[in-house]
């Protein structure tokens, strides 16, 4: 306890002298921290924590408060662990207008909401690099849909949701010329040709299906993060921006020239009206929309050739700019929907805007001018107030629903708690180290769950056992139940944890799919029962309808395959029980294995390059006789007269033909 005070004092002192230096390995952990994060064997965690996987392209699911890794969900990157992106059924999920792209950089997550509260239906995820947005179903914990975004350079300020999941937003980080045209790279060309877009993706109420409803074409600048209004401010979306200088090079310096950048406020209800009134422009483009069908267990890609665009310099009065010091990252709306917190990465204060004042400023035409044809509201007219000297490098703010805000400070490596009403700093705790986003469960909703704040840190130097130059990045769990925040736990994460969402376990766990009903399996190559197993040749394509059940694959002997054949192994898992996937791997397949869920069909394509015998087997330890769950494929020379035969036991190609010495 004394140590904690010491550290706090040290942290405060360090701050005073611009300390961005690392604190000591020792940390301010209270005596009861272990018991508060201990989840006894056989007990469940209190919350699901969905954490972005950053450059892994995946999403990780942790239990809170234990910090135990429960699952890695593949979303934008191929995943050899279960064949995502390798199986024929999942390959289309990663199709884009520029072909199959098996990797991305996954930054933010948003849980679907009803009436401004998490409803546990879907999780949305963004791909920053090749702009895409995904929808993950929280019954099957599967990526069900990925939509590409036209006219986008880097899909960073996404996904963020409106309070009834009407729209998920996707804003461009890197401005690019609209229509992906080539353009000279200089500041003049940037100012003239480069634009950023805010895409509004409509979500179907029942199915969750996404479609790009419209795009708002904004001046060239970098949209960083975003947040929907809620309650009174429902109908608005707020985006933070940087590089309003419109520099094309050395942004580190050139995008930090101005004292203030902007928060872009978009009245999406009004935009919606313009679209309904036919005032949006149709623009020819091409982007992919990939959806996974739960009955065929297969994804398909659709190419969309048109997008509706709105130009706010022509259609006035639905986009306004609020000056915000300086290079803001987060622009976070509090649970009441009344306050918008800007977090200027390079500012020494936190500006808090009041929604009512902002609206009144528009009514009063309290503008200080225009920026690229868009009205700029007077800073003071929209300002609720500033948190003075809160720390260095504020990034992102969440709320506990009790009038308190928690802001992460990257440079001074700390979380600062402050009061929204009077803007006074109430508490601060160090993080280890360089915190990016933080997350209060439900902290982005109307009704935060409170209780914890989790820091997602970029650096963990000296926190874990050394593992060479690269160390696991980490999350840190703090209690916010008392007046003082208290560090409870460190846990390592996959990739780079950016943002996260958390939801009480009760809202998800009982809806979890345990297996897929084999009677509803409409996969075109399903083998519903061993009777339906077969091998068919169509030219040099061979389709193997194979089943898996504890503890054999049927057929387990296949002959008559030739070098260069495209062999499609369609594996149907006949099990109808929870947690009994079967795997399938074949020697020298250059991709990955399959992991086939109970009742599901999945396909591995393999083109043997040489004659010989190719063993195949189940990769997932499924029973006492798992090791025996294996078989052989015989591959003969091209044009060979070995007939196509298959079977198991009595029906195997060589059954009864035992010619060895007795």
């Amino acid at each position: 306890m004394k140590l904690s005070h010491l550290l706090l004092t040290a942290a405060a002192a360090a701050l005073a002298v611009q300390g961005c230096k690392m604190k000591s390995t020792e940390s301010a952990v209270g005596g009861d921290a272990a018991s508060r994060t201990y989840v006894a064997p056989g007990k469940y965690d209190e919350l699901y924590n969905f954490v972005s996987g950053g450059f892994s392209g995946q999403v990780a699911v942790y239990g809170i408060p234990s910090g135990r890794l429960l699952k890695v969900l593949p979303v934008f990157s191929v995943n050899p662990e279960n064949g995502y992106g390798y199986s024929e059924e999942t390959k289309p999920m990663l199709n884009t207008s520029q072909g199959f792209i098996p990797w991305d950089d996954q930054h933010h997550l948003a849980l679907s909401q009803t009436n401004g509260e998490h409803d546990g239906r879907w999780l949305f995820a963004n791909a920053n690099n090749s702009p895409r947005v995904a929808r993950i179903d929280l019954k099957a914990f599967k990526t069900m849909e990925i939509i590409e975004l036209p006219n986008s350079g880097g899909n960073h300020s996404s996904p963020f949701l409106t309070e009834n999941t009407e729209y998920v937003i996707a804003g461009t980080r890197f401005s690019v010329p609209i229509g992906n045209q080539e353009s000279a790279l200089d500041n003049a060309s940037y100012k003239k040709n480069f634009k950023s877009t805010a895409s509004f993706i409509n979500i179907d109420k029942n199915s969750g299906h996404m479609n790009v409803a419209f795009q708002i074409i904004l001046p060239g600048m970098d949209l960083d993060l975003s947040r929907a209004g809620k309650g009174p401010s429902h109908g608005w979306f707020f985006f933070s921006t940087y590089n309003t200088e419109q520099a094309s090079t050395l942004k580190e310096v050139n995008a930090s020239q101005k004292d203030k950048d902007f928060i872009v406020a978009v009245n999406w209800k009004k935009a919606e009206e313009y679209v309904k009134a036919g005032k949006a422009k149709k623009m020819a483009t091409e982007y992919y929309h990939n959806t996974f069908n739960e009955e065929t267990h297969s994804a398909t890609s659709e190419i969309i050739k048109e997008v509706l665009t709105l130009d706010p310099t022509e259609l006035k009065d639905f986009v306004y700019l609020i000056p915000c010091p300086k290079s803001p990252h987060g622009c976070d709306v509090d649970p009441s929907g009344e306050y918008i917190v800007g977090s200027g990465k390079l500012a020494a204060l936190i500006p808090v805007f009041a929604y009512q004042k902002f609206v009144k400023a528009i009514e009063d035409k309290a503008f200080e001018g225009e920026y690229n044809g868009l009205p700029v509201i007077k800073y003071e007219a929209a300002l609720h107030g500033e948190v003075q000297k809160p720390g260095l490098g504020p990034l992102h703010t969440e709320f506990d629903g009790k009038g308190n805000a928690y802001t992460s400070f990257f440079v001074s490596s700390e979380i600062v708690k402050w009061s929204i009403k009077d803007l006074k700093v109430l508490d601060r705790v160090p993080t280890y180290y360089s915190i990016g986003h933080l997350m209060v469960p439900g902290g982005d909703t109307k009704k935060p769950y409170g209780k914890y704040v989790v820091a997602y840190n970029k650096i963990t130097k000296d926190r874990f056992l050394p593992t060479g130059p690269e160390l696991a990045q980490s999350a840190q769990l703090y209690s916010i139940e008392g007046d003082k925040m208290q560090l409870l736990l460190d846990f390592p994460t996959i990739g780079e944890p950016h943002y996260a969402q958390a939801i009480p376990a009760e809202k998800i766990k009982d809806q979890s799919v345990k297996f897929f009903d084999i009677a509803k399996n409409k996969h075109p190559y399903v083998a519903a029962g061993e009777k339906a197993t077969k091998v068919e040749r169509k030219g040099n394509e061979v389709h193997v309808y194979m089943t898996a059940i504890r503890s054999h694959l049927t057929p387990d002997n296949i002959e008559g395959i030739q070098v260069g054949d495209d062999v499609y192994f369609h594996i149907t898992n006949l099990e109808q029980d929870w947690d009994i996937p079967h795997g399938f791997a074949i020697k020298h397949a250059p991709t990955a294995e399959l992991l086939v869920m109970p009742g599901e069909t999945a396909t591995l394509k393999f083109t043997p390059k040489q004659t010989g015998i190719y063993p195949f087997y189940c990769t997932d330890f499924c029973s006492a006789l798992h090791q025996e769950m294996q078989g052989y494929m015989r591959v003969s020379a091209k044009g060979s007269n070995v007939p196509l035969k298959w079977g198991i036991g009595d029906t195997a190609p060589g059954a009864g033909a035992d010619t060895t010495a007795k």
Partner: protein
Amino acid sequence: MKQLRYLFVFSLAIAIAAAGCGGGGQEKSGEKAPESEAPAAGNSAAASTDPKGIGKFKDVQLTHPLDEAMVKKGQEVAEVKCTSCHKLTEEKLVGPGWKGVTDRRTPEWIMNFVTNVDEMLDKDPEAQAMLEVCMVRMPNQNLSDDDARAVLEYMRKIDGKN
């Protein structure tokens, strides 16, 4: 090699006739007739010797003659969910052959085993004895009550009941 196999199958058939799961008949409760009310030889503390097994089926009404619609449905369900592991003869595959099962087991035991696999494998001495022989826990194939009843009817058909 071939001879060995026949020998194996032959001994299996004998064992199945005696024990119901094929394979060795030396297990504690292996030879016990399913109808027996005698207590199990201390296989488990919670051992039940109820010939009806453990589960919700206490009184399964059988029809005479067989319900052919049910037999047909039972066969369809079985071919998707059961026959990967069970032969219709007396021969053991992964699990015991089905021939004779309706003589060895009560209808209730079969229904309870099919729909309440895990509890049966954990507690029922007969089921546990079978597990010791087969070494693979029967998958819970999540048959509905109707499906299970239909499969029972199909088993009765295989056994020549009417």
